[in-house]
């Protein structure tokens, strides 16, 4: 009896430790973001007075609104392009038997292992030649390197698990290819499309190396680059309050999205890895 109670307490302690470990840094960022002036140097763990001065400063001291818009545009275009290319490709890879199919799937997996830095100089050249340097479209294009392999991979794995009979029934009933795709396949694939779309969005929203290298002016920066480059009046004093406020602004929507879609995201994350 006592042993069981002790074991329960031990387990609860482990769970509590994991939660504190996972959540505290973000909690601390939120607490800091509400403190300005001298209050920011307080290490009291409870927030106290809520002061929104940092949030105002983030938007007035640099084009942060513009940076958020940039990130939204880049991530949305990346998701749209990835899905537009990956859905038909996954249909072909999952349904049509052709020679070299497994080689092709393997190629996608191999590309997902490319270190970004290995394509940086080549990508820089392409973007410069296309006149996309310091332009958002250049970023979306380069992000396809990150998003395409796993979208194709996850969608193909999902497509293989869908029963063929539904499509066959639709074809027997005289559905045109267009109807087949729009009315039958896409609704069936919706869960996988939502999951991969979200993962692609997050990947594009968080990307740093390409965004840092392929943009120049503060008006074309995306959010991660803007946050990384926030600096104070002097080089030695970083405006931590502003940095934390900016961090909270860009992270809260992401955390909310992830928590809402957690089941689908977890399924998408693990499907790509385990089924492969």
């Amino acid at each position, binding site marked *: 009896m006592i042993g069981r109670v002790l074991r329960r307490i031990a*387990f609860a302690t482990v769970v509590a430790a994991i939660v504190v470990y996972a959540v505290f840094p973000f909690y601390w960022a939120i607490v800091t973001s509400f403190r300005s002036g001298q209050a920011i140097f307080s290490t009291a763990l409870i927030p106290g007075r809520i002061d929104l001065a940092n949030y105002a400063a983030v938007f007035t001291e640099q084009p942060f609104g513009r940076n958020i818009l940039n990130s939204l545009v880049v991530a949305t275009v990346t998701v749209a392009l990835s899905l537009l290319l990956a859905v038909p490709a996954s249909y072909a890879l999952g349904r049509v038997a052709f020679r070299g199919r497994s080689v092709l799937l393997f190629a996608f997996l191999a590309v997902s292992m490319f270190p970004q*830095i290995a*394509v*940086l100089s080549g990508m820089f050249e*392409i973007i410069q030649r296309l006149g996309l340097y310091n332009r958002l479209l250049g970023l979306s294009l380069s992000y396809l390197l990150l998003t*395409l392999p796993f979208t194709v991979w996850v969608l193909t794995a999902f497509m293989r698990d869908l029963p063929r009979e539904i499509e066959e029934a639709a074809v027997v009933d005289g559905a045109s290819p267009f109807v087949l795709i729009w009315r039958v396949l896409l609704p069936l694939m919706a869960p996988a499309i939502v999951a991969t779309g979200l993962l692609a969005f997050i990947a594009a929203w968080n990307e740093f190396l390409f965004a840092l290298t392929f943009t120049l002016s503060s008006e074309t920066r995306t959010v991660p680059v803007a946050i990384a480059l926030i600096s104070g009046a002097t080089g030695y004093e970083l405006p931590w309050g502003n940095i934390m406020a900016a961090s909270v602004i860009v992270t809260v929507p*992401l955390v909310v999205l992830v928590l809402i879609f957690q089941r689908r995201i977890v399924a998408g994350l693990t499907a790509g890895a385990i089924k492969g």
Partner: protein
Amino acid sequence: MLAVLATVALWPLARTIWFSLTDATLFDLGAAAYVGLDNFAALLADPDWWRAVVNTLVFTAVSVTLEVCLGFAIALTLNAQFPARGALRAAVLIPWAIPTVVSAKMWAWMLQDVYGVVNAVLLQLGVIGAPIAWTASPDLAMAALIAVDVWKTTPFVALLLLAGLQMLPADCYEAARVDGVPALTQFFRITLPLMKPALAVAVIFRILDAMRIFDLVYVLTGNTPQTMTMAVYARQQLIDFQDFGRGSAAATLLFLIIALITVIYMMAVRLRLSGRSELAG
């Protein structure tokens, strides 16, 4: 589709390899002249490059080991039946959802030497006598990097391993329970052997990611040689020093090292797994 993949992956890679054999500079890519293996020779003679190689290997080995151990522990916890399980899984997902740059900044603030909360808590607990400059001192900076990476990526490992745990056959455990096998023996005799494939996948994913780490290092400790990884070195050469040839050579070497590790690892895993299934069959 293939054309796009070729445009964003194969062609840039091929160009990077070509640039590594030239004396290209950032502002005049067109005027690149073939110089053979000069860039690689210069690289191999640069102590900073070797430092970056060692840093990357140390970072990868330590952080992946910690992530897999910690991730496994969290996965086992999440796999147990208890009331707040959903809440715990949600909490664990938070570090994964936070952008790397943001987590680097958050930790930089927490580890700040004068006003950081980590020093404040440790001082109050009496663990340390004086504030510590975590990210500035050469010995601790690498430990700080590893700590942040472990915090950020352990959730991914935990989720992968949890998916593996949930696919384990329940009848093995029932049989073990009927036979009165202790929990620890169950873990070492049933869970661990059956989890080998899932562990192998998690480990290779994390190794590949850790080898190419850039953003965390760049934001947390910048271009300091003490913590510079291969990717940070390559970008510094490419962009900051505008030496496209040398930077491309570094990037090419990193790519080759990663490819080599992947091939060796996959062969080793496949050999072991196939050996085992032959025994089983």
